[in-house]
């Protein structure tokens, strides 16, 4: 069959599915506001975004990795080890000016280790990062003997976690916006993002097209780890401490946010703005269910259902597009 590409008109149903992230966001906003009018209080909304900042930043990184067909389960452990290392160094009298770059380099090294094993060892990303997730977590626990290490550097905790601009906008929100812009630019306006989509869409074709697949994978995994490291800095600032067992759900939440935002698990497609939307959905669910006093069981259940619905919509969009494409080709 001759395959032709042609820009086709989009049906209303398809359009709705396409903007599903926004629809879910608005629907949740309306539902929670009806149930609890305090939900739309600006301070509450700002706090809600602050609480999702570290998930969103991790999710921005995972979007690159998932788009090229990879996966990283070790983000939470990287965040924990970064935070713990920083707290440990500060507790030993190392200045923040030295400790900060050192832990960010450490995060990059963790990403490099992931990339080397995946690319050179040709081991599936799931298995590799499942293993390194345990290794990094184990190192964090061993370094601290399981203890939480408190951070006394108030300037640092204020900057990354507890400070506010104009006494209203939490600093983590500003950091999230900064990474949103950087990641959006890298993903949508540079070769890196384009190459990630190409590799995720068809790795063999990308290779034939001359894309240096190894290099792109290295960059993606290291960048992802760097962002997880930044998320760890925000987390430990919010906690005023380096907590070795923190962030155990971070990777899953970040992957969920990316999937909710339209990043394909199979690779080849995604969007940083969509991932932000996915993160906001998760944050809305957390904040709304919390305001309603829902128990853990319900929170877990509802989050699971929302993710399934989003993935079903994604699949529906894909299959409709494919059917339409085939019909168009047949007519042609």
């Amino acid at each position, binding site marked *: 069959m001759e395959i032709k590409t042609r820009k086709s008109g989009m049906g209303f149903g398809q359009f709705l599915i396409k903007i599903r992230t926004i629809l879910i966001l608005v629907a949740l906003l309306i539902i929670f506001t009806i149930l609890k009018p*305090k939900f739309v*209080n600006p*301070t*509450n909304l700002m*706090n*809600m975004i602050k*609480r999702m900042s570290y998930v969103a930043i991790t999710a921005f990184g995972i979007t690159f990795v998932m788009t090229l067909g990879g996966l990283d389960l070790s983000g939470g452990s990287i965040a924990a080890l970064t935070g713990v290392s920083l707290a440990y160094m500060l507790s030993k009298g190392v200045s923040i000016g030295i400790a900060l770059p050192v832990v960010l380099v450490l995060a990059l*090294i963790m990403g*490099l*280790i992931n990339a*080397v*094993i995946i690319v*050179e*060892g040709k081991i599936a990303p799931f298995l590799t990062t499942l293993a390194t997730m345990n*290794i990094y977590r*184990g*190192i964090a*626990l*061993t*370094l*601290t*003997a*399981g*203890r*939480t*290490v*408190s951070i006394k550097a108030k300037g640092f905790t204020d900057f990354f*976690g*507890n400070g506010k601009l104009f006494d209203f906008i939490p600093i983590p929100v500003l950091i999230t916006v900064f990474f949103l812009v950087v990641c959006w630019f890298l993903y949508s306006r540079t070769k890196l993002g384009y190459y990630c989509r190409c590799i995720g869409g068809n790795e063999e074709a990308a290779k034939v097209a001359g894309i240096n697949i190894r290099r792109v994978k290295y960059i993606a995994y290291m960048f992802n780890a760097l962002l997880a490291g930044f998320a760890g800095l925000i987390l430990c600032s*919010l*906690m*005023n*401490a380096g*907590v*070795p*067992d*923190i962030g155990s*759900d971070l990777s899953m939440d970040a992957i969920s946010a990316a999937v909710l935002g339209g990043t394909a698990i199979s690779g080849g497609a995604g969007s940083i703005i969509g991932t932000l939307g996915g993160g906001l959905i998760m944050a809305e669910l*957390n*904040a709304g269910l*919390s*305001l309603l*006093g*829902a*128990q*853990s*069981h319900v*929170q*877990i259940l509802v989050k699971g259902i929302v993710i399934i619905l989003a993935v079903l919509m994604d699949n529906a969009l894909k299959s409709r597009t494919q059917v339409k494409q085939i019909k168009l080709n047949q007519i042609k």
Partner: protein
Amino acid sequence: MKKLLCIMLALLMVLAVAACTAKPAEPDKPAENTTPKADEPVVPDEPVTPNEPVEAEGISSYYTDNPLYEVVNAEGTKSLDDYYAQFDVECEMGIRSDGPDLYWHGRNKVDLPTPAKQYKIGFSVYYTVDEVGAMYLEGMKDAAAEAGIELLINDANYDQNLQNQAIEQWILEGVDAVIMTACDFYGCKGALDDLHAAGIPVITLDAPPCAGEVDCVVMYDCVEQGREAGEALEKYLLENGSDMNGTIYYGTLPFIHPNAVTREYGFKQVFEKYPNVTVKALTGEEPEDHYTAFEGIMQGDDSIIGLWGLYSSATWGIMQAVENGGYPYPLTSVDNDRVILEGIYNGKILGSDCYGAVEGSRLALAATILLLNGEKVPAIIYQGNTFVDKTNVEAAFEEYYNGATLADYMAGNH
């Protein structure tokens, strides 16, 4: 590229080895502590039923008129920093109440004071996917309904950020007070600071926070819990002719938890007088972790003379490993989940040091109401521990689970 892979793997190994050989702060050696310091909580060794009412200046008559409250530290604890320092737990917290420390001997029979008006109180529980957390919540709901309190609830699902978020929301909602069981003992500081800035009193239940300030603490004496579990094991061993020569293994968490280190301390104290008894820890989180760890050690170590589960998941895993392997080792515990009480009834566990979650909720709510009524409350209220064995397990079950019976539970009627 294979070279690069080898280098990276070597680097990974070096990192792991470095972490393993790094010398962390000495964890399992609490400092000598025979004489409690002035600012440490003092808890009686043996719970007694006092006949004399509480005598403490200025404190609410709700406490002074009730002979089931006993003053254990008339000065009142202002901070738990020194107390936890003994166990090598970093702590920088303060208690604002200048009342005394009391010990409650009345178990679940906590009368609630009458609120001066209808208060709006937020209750954040760390988790409800364990029985203690679930019973805290159930007990608090019932108590609030009984006292006519508008109760806002947050189940933080063991996420300190969610707990902090809920408290931020409650500040916006204008709650009169907050009761919380902290998820992370340091991470709750932000929420405590926010509450302090907003002038909202806060009372903690269960393990107290290690950072920030609170108005009053409701807790149990974990050293006593560990000691009572140890004494039960010691008694069994002596009665059964043990030469007190061998190893006692206990299951604990892989990270530092204030309740765990204090329980460990109390347990180890019991066996200090036996030079040939070694007490060793195996770590894990879920029951299956402990099952695996104990199944392995019981196959490999013939010197075992006894076992202890420091908390319910540990006991559960150990109990199953002992049963499935057909080992004869005696087991004691701390915590009172239903599966533990069933294990005691069936003779798989000698006994467990238990405490009432419903009791804790009622003690915390009573103190909160009094505080909001403008009365002086204790700094620390210790809820009582009870050692539950086969003789009292059925009564304990009914008490801890709001009248439900162990027989019904074992018959599958939950």
